[in-house]
């Protein structure tokens, strides 16, 4: 949890404004009719956020689009019906009612100079579930077609295999029934059981259907875009500012998982952040390679209709786990140890009571690890300095963190100490009374 004055204020304001927006919307719209649809030109953006592709809607009320630099992103010009959804305070598109591609060219202008005119391209996005980040790709044109065909073929093969498997399963079932019928006891000894057919493996390649859009990859900077229709006119509402940004720096982010509440990890993204935990906690630190972006730009890339303004803030975004480098742990008393990232499994405790335990992963008895991380056992006054070490034992930049235990049993003293100005005031008051007499002298 990151504390900041403006974040708290923004939270209160957001709740207040949402309530007002809801009230205003409720007064102007009959709930039985649903929100009013309005025909509008929008951009459907498929943006690369550093690890995956995500989609975002850019309605007419949004003037600026944000995209990552030097990465393939897609801007699709569409005509659709939009409506305002007060609960999320955003415009949504009713794609089912209308989803028309606006055919034309995208003009990209920088500092008044036309630098690119782009035609619509066919594209697909694919990745393998076994290695999403490593295999993610956006393919255009003929390559998109070819890639999609490969995926389609795999899907067809799987369906065919599935059909074969169903047939074999039926036959196996019949065999079992026959053997059972032939047995005097009504059961079939295990050694006589035929082997159950194996289901065909599911295809691991995922793909989008081919779609059309403007595939953009630009260097960091500020641009203006608009759509020029086939008749040469500019599509109304198509002019937008385009801000292309890149990461400010790279580092290591940690997800801190306590033994007793593994479902609620805490993010420690900033290098000067400190991880606090209760004394006696066993803490698991999961490390991720991460990048820091301008928070305003990144948030508006993911959600162009976001209303927060964090122009001075940064936002760390984690991408892939960093499990290879060892972690160096300095306990502050001169003892430095190294530990490796280990896989762990979360096992539900048997019985009626709720509970679980985190145990080391055993490949022989467990299907797959729940997570991998570095372990820290925190004693009462733990104050550890941790970092991931790279080649030759040099700490990886941005991987340093402090891990400390927090004394939550001294709340009363916290308030006592905070009230000390009152004690000081009393001392001053009595000292003053000794020095100065407050009496009334009559004439």
């Amino acid at each position: 949890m990151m504390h900041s004055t403006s974040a708290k204020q923004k939270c209160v304001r957001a709740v207040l404004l949402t309530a007002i927006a809801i009230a205003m919307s409720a007064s102007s719209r009959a709930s039985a009719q649903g929100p009013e649809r309005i025909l509008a030109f929008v951009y459907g953006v498929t943006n690369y956020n550093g690890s995956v592709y995500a989609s975002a809607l850019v309605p007419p009320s949004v003037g600026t689009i944000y995209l990552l630099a030097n990465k393939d992103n897609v801007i699709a010009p569409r005509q659709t019906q939009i409506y305002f959804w007060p609960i999320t305070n955003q415009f949504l598109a009713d794609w089912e009612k209308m989803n028309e591609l606006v055919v034309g060219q995208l003009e990209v202008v920088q500092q008044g100079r036309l630098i690119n005119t782009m035609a619509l391209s066919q594209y697909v996005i694919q990745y393998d579930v076994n290695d999403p980040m490593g295999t993610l790709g956006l393919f255009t044109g003929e390559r998109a077609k070819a890639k999609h065909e490969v995926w389609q073929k795999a899907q067809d093969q799987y369906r065919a295999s599935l059909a074969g498997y169903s047939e074999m399963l039926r036959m196996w079932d019949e065999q079992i029934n026959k053997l059972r019928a032939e047995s005097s006891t009504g059961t079939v000894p295990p050694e006589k059981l035929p082997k159950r057919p194996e289901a065909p493996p599911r295809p691991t390649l995922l793909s989008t259907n081919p779609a059309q859009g403007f595939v953009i990859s630009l260097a960091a900077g500020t641009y203006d875009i608009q759509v020029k229709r086939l008749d040469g006119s500019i599509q109304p509402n198509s002019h937008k500012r385009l801000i292309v940004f890149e990461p400010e720096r790279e580092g290591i982010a940690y997800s801190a998982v306590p033994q007793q509440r593994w479902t609620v990890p805490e993010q420690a993204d900033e290098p000067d952040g400190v991880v606090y935990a209760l004394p006696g906690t066993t803490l698991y630190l999961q490390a991720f390679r991460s990048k820091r972006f301008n928070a305003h730009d990144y948030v508006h890339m993911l959600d162009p209709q976001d209303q927060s303004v964090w122009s001075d803030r940064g936002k760390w975004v984690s991408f892939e786990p960093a499990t290879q480098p060892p972690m160096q742990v300095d306990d502050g008393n001169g003892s430095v140890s190294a530990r490796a990232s280990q896989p762990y499994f979360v096992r539900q405790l048997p019985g009626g009571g709720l509970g679980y335990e985190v145990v080391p992963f055993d490949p022989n008895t467990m299907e797959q690890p729940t997570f991998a991380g570095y372990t820290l056992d925190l004693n009462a006054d733990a104050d550890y300095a941790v970092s991931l070490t790279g080649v030759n034992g040099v700490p990886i930049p941005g991987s340093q963190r402090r891990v400390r235990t927090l004394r939550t049993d001294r709340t009363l003293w916290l308030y006592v100490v905070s009230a000390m100005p009152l004690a000081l005031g009393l001392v001053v008051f009595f000292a003053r009374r000794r020095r100065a007499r407050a009496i009334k002298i009559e004439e």
Partner: protein
Amino acid sequence: MNEFIIQTHDLTKAFGDFKAVDHVNLQVRPGEIVGFLGPNGAGKTTTLLMILSLLTPTAGSVHLFGQQLQDDPFGLKRRIGVVIEAQSFYDEMTAWEYLMFFARLYGLAKPEARAHHLLERLNLWQWRDVLIGGYSTGMQRKLALVRALLHSPDLLILDEPVASLDPFGIVQVRELLLAEREAGRTLLISSHILSEIERTADRIGIIVHGKLVFEDTMESLRQRVRGVQHIEVELVSPVNGIAQVLTALPFVTDVKADGQRVTLLTCGDDDHRADVARALAGHGALVQAMRTVEPSLEEAFITITESEVKRWTEGAHGR
């Protein structure tokens, strides 16, 4: 040494069409006590504030110690001590703290002894550690005087320095001011307690309707109003109708008979005591004592201001 400590030249202050101070030429010499008098609303306070540069004159100039205040405001102000009529203090301070604050303000090196001396003289020493908010009005006025005297100023400007004081306090303050004059200080005192002014002032200035109508010594003032002789008669026993008998005398301007005491105002052209005695004897009144009384400052003041008011009023109607 400058000829004048305070010198104003055609000092004027106008508020719209109303002239609160009208071409006042006031001169205060070193080492003298000047009483500055006038009826309520005459312009005394306005004049004093202009002398102290707290009000900007509409016209005219003010010189203090031969300089204009703007030439060396901080330096000149260090040579002046001021007590104004409306008292203002920091109620949360003790008298001693208050004085030490002003001592620091004026850059006094070792003010403790002088502060002790002044407080002792005005019977405030035993109350020095009491918060000023608890002081009576008279004590506050004395404290203001101590504050004004603390830095041994060359010029003292005092507005009602003895108001709200008991008779003992008035005597203390009078003696202190006279001692200051002996030490070479110059004092400009504005007060409605004319008896005190009469006792202490070397010269008097009287301002009426913004104009300085008189500025000279006490003796000159008495001479100016000596056109009236004041006779007091003490009879052995009251006599009926004696007031009418005396009023009929040609040289008598006013008679007051109160039992055995009869007071007459006569023209100051001659000594009319013998004529009065003859008139009394003719009416069967036996005189026990008879004396002439010098016109007091109060009488002089009233005479002058009344005549000035009359002249001003006639002038205003004539316009």
